[in-house]
C-alpha cells in the first residue's frame, strides 16, 4: 500500500508543505489573536456592543469554508491574502469569546485592589488582568489552532493548503501514498500543536496548579 519510494521521492515537497502548513496556521492564529485582542479591548467596557460583535463573528464562523474562499477570490484573487482572510475569520469567534470570558472571570476584588494600589489602566490590563485570563485564552488558542490546521487544507483549492496540496496531488495522480501522507501528517500536526500549547499553557500559569497544602 504505502510506497516508501514515493515518500522518498517527494520528501522535499512534503517538508516544504509541512512548513507552509505551519506558517499559514501561525499567521492565521497570530493575526486572529491580535485582532480579537483589539476588538475585545474596544468592546469590553461597552457591553451593548458585545452581542452584535460576537454575532458577526458567529456568522462568519458559520459560512462554509469553500463558499467563503469562492466569495473572496474575485476581490483578492488567488493570493496568500485570500487564504489568510478566510483562516483568520474562522479564529475570531473562538479567540474573542475566550479572551472576553477570561477577562470577565478576573475577580472584581482583584481589579479593585489593583486600582486601589495605584495601577494605571494599561498596567492593570497587562500585569493583572491578562495574566489571569491566560488559562481561558490558551484554551481558546488551542481550539483555534487545531481548527485552523484542519481548515488550511481547504486553501489548497486556491493554490495554498500546505499538506492539503500533498493530498490533492495524491488524488489527482491516483497516488494513495501521498493522500495518506497528507492525512497522517495533518493529524500529527494538530495533535502535536495541541499538546505543545497545553504544555505551554501550564508553564506560563504556575499559580493555577497551586492549591492549599502543595506548597
Amino acid at each position: 500500500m504505502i510506497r516508501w519510494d514515493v515518500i522518498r521521492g517527494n520528501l522535499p515537497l512534503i517538508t516544504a508543505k509541512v512548513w507552509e502548513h505551519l506558517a499559514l496556521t501561525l499567521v492565521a492564529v497570530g493575526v486572529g489573536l491580535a485582532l480579537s485582542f483589539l476588538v475585545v479591548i474596544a468592546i469590553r467596557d461597552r457591553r451593548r456592543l458585545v452581542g452584535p460583535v460576537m454575532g458577526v463573528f458567529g456568522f462568519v464562523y458559520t459560512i462554509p469554508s469553500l463558499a467563503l474562499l469562492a466569495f473572496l477570490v474575485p476581490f483578492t484573487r488567488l493570493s496568500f491574502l485570500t487564504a489568510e482572510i478566510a483562516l483568520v475569520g474562522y479564529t475570531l469567534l473562538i479567540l474573542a469569546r475566550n479572551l472576553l470570558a477570561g477577562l470577565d472571570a478576573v475577580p472584581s476584588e482583584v481589579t479593585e485592589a489593583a486600582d486601589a494600589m495605584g495601577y494605571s489602566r494599561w498596567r492593570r490590563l497587562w500585569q493583572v488582568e491578562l495574566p489571569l485570563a491566560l488559562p481561558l485564552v490558551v484554551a481558546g488558542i488551542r481550539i483555534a489552532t487545531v481548527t485552523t490546521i484542519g481548515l488550511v487544507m481547504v486553501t489548497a483549492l486556491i493554490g495554498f493548503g500546505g499538506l492539503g496540496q500533498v493530498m490533492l496531488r495524491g488524488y489527482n495522480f491516483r497516488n494513495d501514498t501521498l493522500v495518506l501522507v497528507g492525512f497522517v501528517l495533518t493529524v500529527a500536526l494538530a495533535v502535536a500543536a495541541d499538546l505543545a500549547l497545553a504544555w505551554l499553557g501550564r508553564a506560563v500559569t504556575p499559580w493555577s496548579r497551586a492549591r492549599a497544602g502543595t506548597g
Partner: protein
Amino acid sequence: MSGAEPSSRRAATVAFDHVTKRYPGTDARNPGAVEDLSLEVPAGMICVLVGPSGCGKTTSLKMVNRLIEPTSGRILIDGADAARRDVTELRRSIGYVIQQVGLFPHQTIGENVATVPRLLGWPAARRLERSEELLGLVGLDPASYRDRYPAQLSGGERQRVGVARALAADPPLMLMDEPFGAVDPIVRERLQNEFLRLQADLAKTILFVTHDIDEAIKLGDLVAVMEVGGRLAQFGTPEEILAYPASDFVARFVGADRGLKRLALSRVASLELRPAITARPGDDAADARRRTLADPFEYLLLVDAEDRPIGWVPERSIPTSGVLDESMAASMSPLLDRRTTLKDALAMLIDAEVQAGIVVDRRGVLRGLVTAEDIVAAARREPVAPS
C-alpha cells in the same frame, strides 16, 4: 505581630469637608449615598465608620482614595485636597485592605506584598527586603511563605498578607473595609488583637469600616455612626457613644446592652481593689481562722512566699489548730491583671466557683481582689460627659 522592627510612625490627618455623594435614579433611601459628611480624624488615630448596610460607610471610605469621586465637598489629607492630586500617586500613598483581600492569584506572596514598592520603582533588592520585613511583622515566616501562591494560604493568612501589602510603602494613611469580616470568630478575635498591637507600634491614621458595633468599640479611638441615607448620626469616642447616644437610632444601633458594652472599654486598673485575707503554708491555722471569721468574705487566700496566689481555703475547712498547708487550697479563681477588661473579668467571675477575681501583677504577685459587685458598680457610674 509585635516582634519585628516597626516602620516609621508617619501618619496623616484626614478631614471630610461637607462631602456628598448622590447616585442617579433617586431612590428615596438611596443606598450607598453620603449626605453632607464632615468629620476630622487626627493623625495616628483609628476612626471606625460603622452603620447598617447601605449607610454609605464604604462609599465614604472609597472616596478617600478616589475609587469613588464625591458629588460635592472635599476630602483633605494633611490639609491638601485629594481631588487635586494625581490619582495613581494618591492611591500609592494610601494603604487599602478589603474583606475579600484581593491578592493577585498569579503572584507569589512575596510579589503581592511588594506590589506598591514595585509600582513606585524600588530596586529589586529593596523590595525583597521590605516584603520579608513585612511578612515578619504580620507574623508569617518569610522563608516559608514568600514563594507560595495565595491559593495555598488559609483565609486568616491571606488577610495578614493583605495587611502586609497595604503597609508595604509605609503609607501614612490606611483604609480598611471589613478586613476581618470573612474569617471565623476565633481567627477574627486574634487578628483584631494583633492589629491593635501592630497599630500601637505603627501609629498610622486608619479609617476602618465595619457593620459590627462591637468591633467598632473594640478597635476605634473614634467611632462615626452612620445611618441609611448617608448621614452621620454621631461622631465621638466609643465611651461617649455608649454613654450618650445622640439619637434613638444610635441608641438602638449600639444595642440595649450598651451598659455591658461599656465594660469592654474599662480595665481592672480603673477599679479600687479589695484587700484579701491571706496566709502562707506553715502559718498558724488558728490565727488564720480568726482573721477569716472576722471578714465578711468567707474565704482565706493561700499565697506562697512571694505572695503568689495558690488557692482558696473555705472558712469551714480551716483547722482550729496546727499549721496550714497547700493541700487545703480547694479551688482557684481566675487570675486577672490590670489590663483585663471589665467585660472579660465579669465573664470569668460568672463562671468561677469563688466569686472574687484575683488581680496579680506581671510577676504573678497578688495585688487584691475584684468582685462582680465592684464591676457592676463601676458600670453604673456615669462617665464624663462629652464637652
